């Protein structure tokens, strides 16, 4: 099929544009180490990257590889191979992308030439999974280790309380914290066993301090987006999360997030927005379509900006006492669970479902968000193959409707461009903005606030 309608994103910030040099430098360093046969772990988001750094373990994120394959439009090739192997097209496209990749790798003994990185994802020596967020994550590494790479797997299991259970009840807190602590200990002894290294707690503490410093800059950057006009949009946002995955715990990451903070702050002070006239200030729900990030620029061309994205958003859950770094990891996970709980955990399987906001009885977080970021509408990406993140959008739409915020749900996928229908999606987005105009929710935000 033709992918001519897909477009790469234009970023607005200088700092994120500089990532184009920073990340390849990192990948080259990784590649050299891989060539010297250091063990490589494939990991899932949810595994504390600081822990990997503390073990000086080489790691790769198949989910992120999925986003890269998607943006280079090679994901359909891998996904089709997986489908030929019996994996349903309904399954998470990050997963099917990996499964197709693995199958081709196994057949030829090397990374498929289409891989976005030279050497692809390398050959794993272990798989470190995390059931954080969804079921596919439980089955994914299980299947990889069954079909393709016969390597040991450890999947961590960070459960969180359901929406109608009070996470502040000390019995409940203890119930969950005990699981988190014991699970982390299991994860550490697994890594120790398979690397032959002992965890150095002092090193872990230093890494966490650096990582939290970077996260704090990032959190503060996101808060700056309350300014009208918003100084940063979604294309920068979705790219700027990548250093968190690869460079966490490095001074380089702290510098990156400090620079982004300073650049965004400077834009706020100078009143520089990302579009000439900010007509619609929106909130984005769901995963982005990585193969067509240009859709954000398209919306910007119509005067629509996103000041907030529900996915990959950091709160201040990392504000924990680092003196005992293991307890800090546990508390951080727990605080994140509690935070998400306040947002609305009615459809939350584990730690987060970013589709659901402000549902928990008594919580005004959704209303606060709408007020603080001067939001006038919401766009929700219903990703067919990732229900984990998008299931709950109808529920949030209902809640937004109650406070008079219009929203649009459109369907596609995060990695599989075959589910993208450009003309149709653009028509729907356009029509949505027009209705916002008609109902007085469009137009110059400053004028409307007067």
């Amino acid at each position, binding site marked *: 099929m033709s992918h001519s309608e897909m477009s790469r994103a234009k970023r607005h910030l200088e700092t994120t544009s500089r990532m184009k040099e920073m990340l390849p430098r990192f990948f080259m360093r990784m590649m050299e180490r891989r060539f010297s046969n250091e063990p490589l772990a494939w990991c899932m988001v949810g595994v504390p990257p600081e822990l990997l750094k503390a073990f000086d373990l080489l790691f790769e994120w198949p989910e992120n590889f999925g986003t890269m394959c998607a943006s280079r439009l090679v994901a359909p090739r891998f996904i089709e191979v997986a489908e030929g*192997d*019996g*994996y*349903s097209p*309904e*399954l*998470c496209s990050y997963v099917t992308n990996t499964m197709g990749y693995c199958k081709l790798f196994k057949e030829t003994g090397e990374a498929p030439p289409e891989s976005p990185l030279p050497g692809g994802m390398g050959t794993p020596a272990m798989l470190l999974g995390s*059931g954080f967020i*969804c*079921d*596919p994550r*439980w*089955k*994914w*590494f*299980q*299947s*990889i*280790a*069954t*079909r393709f790479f*016969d390597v040991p*797997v450890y*999947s961590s*299991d960070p*459960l969180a*309380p*359901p*929406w*109608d*259970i009070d996470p502040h009840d000390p*019995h*409940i807190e203890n*119930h969950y914290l*005990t*699981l988190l602590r*014991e*699970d982390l200990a*299991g994860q550490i002894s697994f890594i120790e066993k398979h690397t032959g290294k002992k965890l150095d707690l002092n090193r872990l503490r230093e890494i966490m301090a650096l990582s939290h410093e970077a996260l704090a800059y990032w959190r503060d950057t996101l808060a700056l987006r309350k300014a009208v006009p918003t100084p940063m949009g979604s294309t920068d946002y979705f790219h700027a999360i990548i250093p968190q995955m690869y460079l966490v715990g490095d001074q380089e990451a702290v510098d990156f997030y400090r620079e982004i903070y300073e650049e965004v702050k400077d834009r706020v002070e100078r009143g520089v927005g990302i579009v000439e006239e900010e007509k619609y200030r929106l909130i984005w729900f769901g995963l982005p379509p990585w193969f067509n990030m240009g859709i954000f620029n398209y919306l910007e061309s119509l005067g629509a900006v996103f000041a907030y994205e529900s996915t990959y958003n950091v709160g201040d859950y990392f504000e924990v006492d680092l003196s005992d770094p293991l307890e800090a990891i546990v508390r951080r996970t727990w605080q994140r669970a509690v935070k998400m709980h306040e947002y609305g*955990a*009615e*459809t*939350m*399987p584990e730690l987060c*479902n970013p589709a659901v906001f402000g*549902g928990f009885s008594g919580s005004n977080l959704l209303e606060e968000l709408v007020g603080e970021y001067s939001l006038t509408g919401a766009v929700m990406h*219903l990703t*067919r193959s990732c*229900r*984990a993140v*998008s*299931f*709950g*959008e*109808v*529920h949030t739409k*209902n809640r937004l409707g109650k406070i008079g915020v219009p929203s649009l*749900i459109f*369907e596609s996928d995060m990695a599989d461009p075959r589910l993208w229908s450009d003309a149709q999606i653009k028509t729907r987005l356009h029509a949505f903005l027009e209705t916002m105009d008609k109902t007085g929710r469009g137009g110059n935000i400053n004028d409307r606030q007067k």
Partner: protein
Amino acid sequence: MTVRNNTGLLNKAAEENEQNVRRIKAETGKPVIGYLCCFAPPEIISAAGAIPYRITGQPGMDTSAADAYVEPYGCTYVRNILARAVDGKLDFLDGLIISHSCDMVQRLYGIWTYSHPLPYSYLFNVPHQISPWAQRFYKRELGFFQESLEKFTGHQVTIPELKNIIVKYNHNRFLVRKLYELRKESLPLIEGSEMLNLLIAGGTLPAEDFTVLLEKTTNDVIKRKPDGPKAPRILVWGSIMDDPALYRMIEEAGGKVVADDTCIGFRVWEKDVPLTEDTRDGLTEHYFVTFQCPRTDRGPGIKRFDYLLQRAREYRVDGVVGYSISFCDPHKFDYPDLRDYLKKEGFPMLLIDDNYSFEPAGAIQTRLQAFIEMLK
């Protein structure tokens, strides 16, 4: 020839189960607690003075009532249950217990209890692996669950009472296993669809009423004379099977369902709950550690399907029919591994993808027929 019942709408059994529970509720004055999945033991529900009722869907029904609450991309069975709840079809329930078996039912819990609250509801959280700490979590969860239920019913669970109920349930397990034994014969005396309807009823009846039903059925069945031609023996694996439509279609295509590995099927009755000193140890062992559901991670490797291979051999199965409901991650993920493993061991497998409607029936029937022909 049986009347084809592909939509399940002709399945009077489900209706009877509902009428039954309404009657028992009126007679006993006990609250009815609906549940999905088996991780929260019905024994505890009974011991707390309530009637456990396993909620079933109605394949093929119009589920548009669910559209106002959930998106189209979700397990069609879960949407079906939600649509029934929204339509008031489950108004006889006083409470709801959902275990965190898969993402979809967990979300059903939240959206259902948020939009249509019931007098009582509890989400039973279940870890995904069976590590020692996961088992300890499960055991603690049993305690929290029991406490919350006792608060609702006002009835304290006593150990002797709970043990007594476990014994009753175990007796039913024994009777179910006896009926399954009869299916090992070359000419099984009981049809798969009849067996499934019986098990579905078992999820909706108090233990003692189910005992009566099982004994009566067993007495009838053993009097039957083996009859008819030998037919390919089928094991059904897959997503929730709470309606016999597929079994009937297999029977009509000339096959015999002699074994299964689905929710509500054998996995619930296969083993007894061990009567341990601390009852929660036995319940943890039964409902969590040995309970075979693909949502639980038993580590990589094909060994995780050994139990199924053993079952296929024990029941001298000729082929396996897989059933996968739209958007069912746990089963769809296991399919390629399982298919390859069974093939290697000499068991062909046919996968039926369905949106919980068994439609288009003609197309499903044709595929089943071709598969069963091939097995002859």
